[in-house]
């Protein structure tokens, strides 16, 4: 019970702190031009301060200082802290003045390498497609690929209000459950602090008058923590009875951003474009084309992912994770295909209207 009380305190502290920080830093951000200016492709109409990421990290960080688990285990988890600070800084610079994509990539690869060397790595496929322990070289490549991939995939999810935050909240909530299950108490408290901060952030993110964004600073950091702590949870669960559940949850949390990025890159390459060319074809864009407004769409996607995580955890434990993955992929591909057709229908309907008026 003490544990639960502690979590509540940390969460509340983090939440209150982030609210204070955002209120104070909003004006500052506007003054120093740390804002997102609207353009034709983006969804918003006036400049929005991008301090969500910084506020979340600071608030969660201070809240963590209150917890004994933090001081006990900080040595083991320093990679998380280091990586967070690095990405926060790079992200903030990028938000202010656009860092080159290649530079961001190099930093991410360097971080991934750093993490791999510290012992946090994908050592096994945990039974997916019947594969278990992986050869060293594959571990290396896979770890790097997954870390860099998920960080970027999550970064791309930050497209409409409340989406990245919503996905983070349910992601970290599911992770908290696994962390408690596997005895990873440091991670549990970390997740709780972050959840508190994000909830506070959401209040501003969804507001019409005091809106803030989390920016690259926020989405890179959150994506980073999600993927690295996910690997940590899996390593911790390995060999125990909880491994299938953990696997199901991690895949459920990271599945949609990853599948979506792959789909979008593939489609862009197939059309002969660069995979980084900005267009409006991400999953959340497709959902918006059904006619929902932004907050509703975020909610729908978040709810969908919540169901996927739950089903994935249950499937994984009761049956077999490979089956869960394949089912999820089939589901995702079918839904995106239908949504994609709907998007084309919407585009062509407009074009035809113009033709008909001639």
């Amino acid at each position, binding site marked *: 019970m003490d544990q639960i009380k502690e979590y509540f305190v940390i969460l509340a502290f983090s939440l209150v702190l982030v609210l204070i920080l955002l209120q104070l830093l909003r004006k500052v951000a506007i003054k120093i031009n740390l804002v997102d200016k609207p353009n034709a492709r983006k969804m918003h109409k006036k400049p929005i301060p991008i301090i969500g990421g910084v506020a979340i990290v600071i608030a969660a960080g201070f809240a963590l200082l209150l917890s004994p688990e933090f001081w006990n285990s900080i040595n083991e988890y320093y990679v998380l802290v280091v990586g967070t600070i690095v990405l926060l800084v790079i992200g903030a610079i990028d938000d202010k003045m656009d860092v080159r994509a290649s530079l961001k990539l190099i930093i991410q690869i360097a971080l991934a390498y750093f993490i791999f060397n510290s012992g946090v790595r994908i050592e096994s496929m945990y039974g997916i497609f019947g594969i278990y322990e992986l050869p060293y070289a594959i571990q290396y490549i896979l770890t790097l690929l997954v870390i860099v991939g998920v960080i970027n995939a999550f970064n791309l999810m930050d497209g409409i209000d409340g989406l990245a935050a919503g996905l983070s909240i349910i992601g970290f909530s599911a992770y908290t459950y696994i962390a408690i299950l596997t005895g990873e108490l440091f991670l549990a408290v970390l997740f709780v602090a972050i959840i508190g901060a994000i909830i506070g952030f959401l209040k501003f993110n969804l507001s019409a008058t005091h809106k803030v964004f989390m920016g690259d600073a926020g989405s890179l950091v959150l994506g980073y923590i999600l993927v690295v702590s996910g690997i940590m949870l899996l390593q911790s669960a390995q060999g125990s009875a909880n491994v299938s559940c953990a696997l199901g949850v991690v895949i459920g949390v990271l599945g949609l951003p990853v599948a979506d990025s792959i789909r979008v890159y593939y489609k862009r390459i197939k059309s002969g474009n660069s995979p980084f060319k900005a267009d409006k074809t991400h999953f959340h864009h497709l959902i918006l084309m059904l006619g929902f407004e932004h907050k509703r769409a975020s909610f729908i996607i978040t709810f969908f992912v919540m169901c996927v995580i739950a089903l994935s955890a249950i499937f994984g434990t009761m049956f077999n994770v490979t089956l869960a993955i394949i089912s999820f992929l089939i589901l995702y591909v079918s839904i995106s295909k*239908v949504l994609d*057709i*709907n998007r084309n*229908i919407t585009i*062509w309907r407009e*074009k*035809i209207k113009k*033709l*008909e008026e*001639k």
Partner: protein
Amino acid sequence: MGAKKKIAVIGTVGLPAKYGGFETLAAHLVKNLDRKYKITVYCSGKKYKKINNQRQTYYRFARLKYLPFKANGIQSIIYDTLSIIHALFYADVLLVLGVAGAWILPFVKTFTNKKIIISIDGIEWKRDKWNFFAKCYLFWAENLAVKYSHIDISDNESIQDYTAIRYGSLSRIIEYGADHTMKVVPVYEDRQEFPFLNKPYAFKVCRIEPENNVHEVLKAFSQLTKYTLVMVGNWENSEYGRGLKQQYEKRASIILLDPIYEQSRLDLLRSNALVYIHGHAAGGTNPSLVEAMYLGLPVIAYGVSYNRTTTEDKALYFKNHKDLIGLIKNTTIKELKAQGSIMGEIAKRRYNWELVSDKYSQLITEALMVKDKVAVKPRLAQLGVTKLIEMNLGHLKHQHLFFEKE
């Protein structure tokens, strides 16, 4: 020359024609071409029941095959698919009307040597009558239909523009015939039954759907109390129709009639009208419009590209009830009569079944010879600019094509 080629006509409700444009088309194709080809037409067993001898085995010299499914709605997918599969066993050319069965065409084109001519019937997926999933299916199926047929047919130039832009393919245009209609002189009993035949009236016949602007026309005529409007349609079939009927039927100058399936009865009411109102906003060349034109009626049509193309931009056009009121009030009888002759001339020239059947026959011959589909842009245009200039073909890179109108 060899044996007669076997043609399968797929996707219509069946013969004898009782339902709509595709059925009338099938009937006339059979009438004109059943000596030239061995034709089989697939019919819906649900509409042509076994009792009362409704089912014929032959219609003129065309064989009739029955399937136990409806030809329209969601059953059309299985209706068309089974027809196509059955036809693969004997036919040389498959003439498919509508895209419901298009999902199977990639297999037909890859694994068999049967030729496919498909008519895409307006831009079906855009119609408001379909739900979300139906629209998605039809949109996707239309893509397959155009990509995997040997020849695709639009019934209107504006649709040809659309397929050129979307698919880069050159659709053929074959419209409808109207010469099965005729002017009917009313007899005494007719005038008793329909008193409005004794004075001038405006006429409109259509499915009662919002896309056909029924509400706009009714709104206009409710303010034109000195002018009579006679409208025939399936009022009771929808909330939209029932609502409008209730709202407008009490007016003396507006006469709303239920659907008339008998050709001569419809012609009676139609051919004696002073002017024909055509409110369709969607779907290519409408049979009802060309029929009205053939009867020499002046036309006031909704100003959308398809209607302008059908009437060669020579009719009168409206966008809303205000325009319509203006046109009715300000056009003299003399002008209307002149209009009517112009419409009649266009129809005689373009909308006769012999011409239509002839075009289909030419397409069949072409389909039997062609291997790949003709594209709008020449394949050379895909080469780089420098290469083209080397070959003195630089102009091919950026052409002003027929569908890029000002």
